[in-house]
């Protein structure tokens, strides 16, 4: 069984939003729902100011607080590590939304809190999800963390990586190149 992870090289992101658009089209998302977003941070002062961009989406945490608080197991962790939602079981209590430290969830018209799925149908077939395959700068790289020969492991070995707010104890599965 694979153990999926995602490596993001934020320094290459141009802020073009192609990932969000591709994701919305592929997943046929409603207007008010986004599975991934870009955070913009201004650092420094003119003339030395820089704009940092950080792509964010559901971290598919190894210790997901959203799943811990879900009363019906509508949110659950799959064996491959993907945190998934069974919409039929969801009562719409939104506890997962208040529990998530990454603001990863959006309510859809049916009042179900959706989030990035990591498109398992793509990963299982060795393909990159739409957000990754559409990116001109290859900012994202999905892969199997348990496969020593996987591209993601090779790339992670070459760089120092970090997680976002690891102190929350959620053990996110997205790694960012430092």
């Amino acid at each position, binding site marked *: 069984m694979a153990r999926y992870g995602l490596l993001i090289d934020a320094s290459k992101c141009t802020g073009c939003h192609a990932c969000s658009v591709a994701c919305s089209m592929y997943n046929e998302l409603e207007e008010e729902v986004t599975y991934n977003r870009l*955070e*913009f*941070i*201004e*650092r420094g002062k003119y003339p030395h100011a820089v704009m940092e961009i*950080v792509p*964010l989406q559901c971290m598919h945490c190894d210790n997901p*607080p959203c*799943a*811990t*608080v*879900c*009363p*019906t*197991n*509508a949110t659950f962790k799959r064996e491959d590590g993907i945190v998934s939602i069974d919409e*039929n*079981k*969801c*009562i*719409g*209590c*939104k*506890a997962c*939304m*208040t*529990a*998530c*430290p*990454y*603001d990863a*969830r*959006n*309510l859809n*018209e*049916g*009042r*179900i*809190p959706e989030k990035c799925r990591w498109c398992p149908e793509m990963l299982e077939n060795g393909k990159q999800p739409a957000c990754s395959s559409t990116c001109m700068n290859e900012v994202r790289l999905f892969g199997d963390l348990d496969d020593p020969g996987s591209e993601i492991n090779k790339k992670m070995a070459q760089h120092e990586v970090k997680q*976002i*707010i690891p102190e*929350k*104890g959620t053990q996110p599965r997205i790694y960012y190149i430092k």
Partner: protein
Amino acid sequence: MLKQKLWIGISALLVLIGMAGMINIFLHGEHVMGTTNYVPWGSLIGAYVFFVATSTGLTFISSLAHTFKVHKFDVLTKRMTLASIATLLMGFVMIGIELGNPLAMVYIILSPNFTAPIFWMGLLYSFYLALHVVEFYFQLKGDHKKINVISPIVLAVAVAAQSTLGAVFGMAVARGYWNDAYISIYFILLAFISGLAFVSIMMFLMSKADVISKKTKDQISQLPPVMSKMILGLLAAAVFFNVWKWIYTLSGNVPGQADAAMLMAGGALTLPYWLLEVGFVFVVPIVLLLTLKKQQGLALMLSGLSMLIGIFAMRMIMVFAGQAIPLNIIPGAESATGLREFSITWSEWATFGFGVGGTILIYILGEKLFNLNLEDDHHTESEKSGEKMTNTGYKYAR
């Protein structure tokens, strides 16, 4: 009679307006609610907490009679149980409207998640309702043996359910303002105060109502001094909690906690906090109860009203303060600055109105359908057992 018709009229109107609001939410979902992706729990969560906490508080007071044998309160137990059931049902209506898909509730049983506080809260409050109905049935039958068995169980379940409700907030690790080990204990304390506030109003109305027997009114007239002392004592405990919460919050370093407190110290929630929470819950009742000693019934009623309004606001403030501060996911990012928007829409106000009107209607219906006075069952039982009655008509040994 006329007065009762007026109460029924006002309550029915509230229920009708409430139904309009609820239908609007049913048709248009979160678009007509004050919730957003960043503030997912809205005012109906606050209203839910308000109603179920009041129900729990009423159980605490009625348990004074049946569990702790403070028989002064015997006279109110049936009425408190009825009111407790009514407020609990209205709490369920509030949460039912807030839930996006209440029909899927069946999965709480079919696919339970034992780590989720909401699972335990749902289970405990359902159990509480069922036990309460059984308790009320035996109270109506005057079967004290069974009541004495069931009453402590209802109390234990009420404490468990209310403190688990505290945990629903307290265990939200992402929200610094709620993520507090003492929140469950504070919830119990506030529930007790809510119950006392409700009973204070009930006592005043009963002492004026023409449908209540003279004997019952006489018995009620003996309660104000002890009620007043209990309210003052519990308010003092709540002040103690609050002062330490402020000290810990402002001196601590929990992400989001001090920022949320600043909303009350000098931000968007300053006016509601100081006026409605501090003023209505603490200052007004303390001043009234300490100064209007000659008219304790009136002081209690006014304090009760003030506390219920204040506690209602307090629930809203707690719900919003926990979510209004943006999560600091990427320090310095645009999304980590400013304040998350929150509001209460007319549909939500109308839904609370339904809760208030519904509580009054259920209560009046109960008064009409059942005999909620003490005399008969006590006479029968004491005559049978030959136990000693005191001059107020209460048995002190059971």
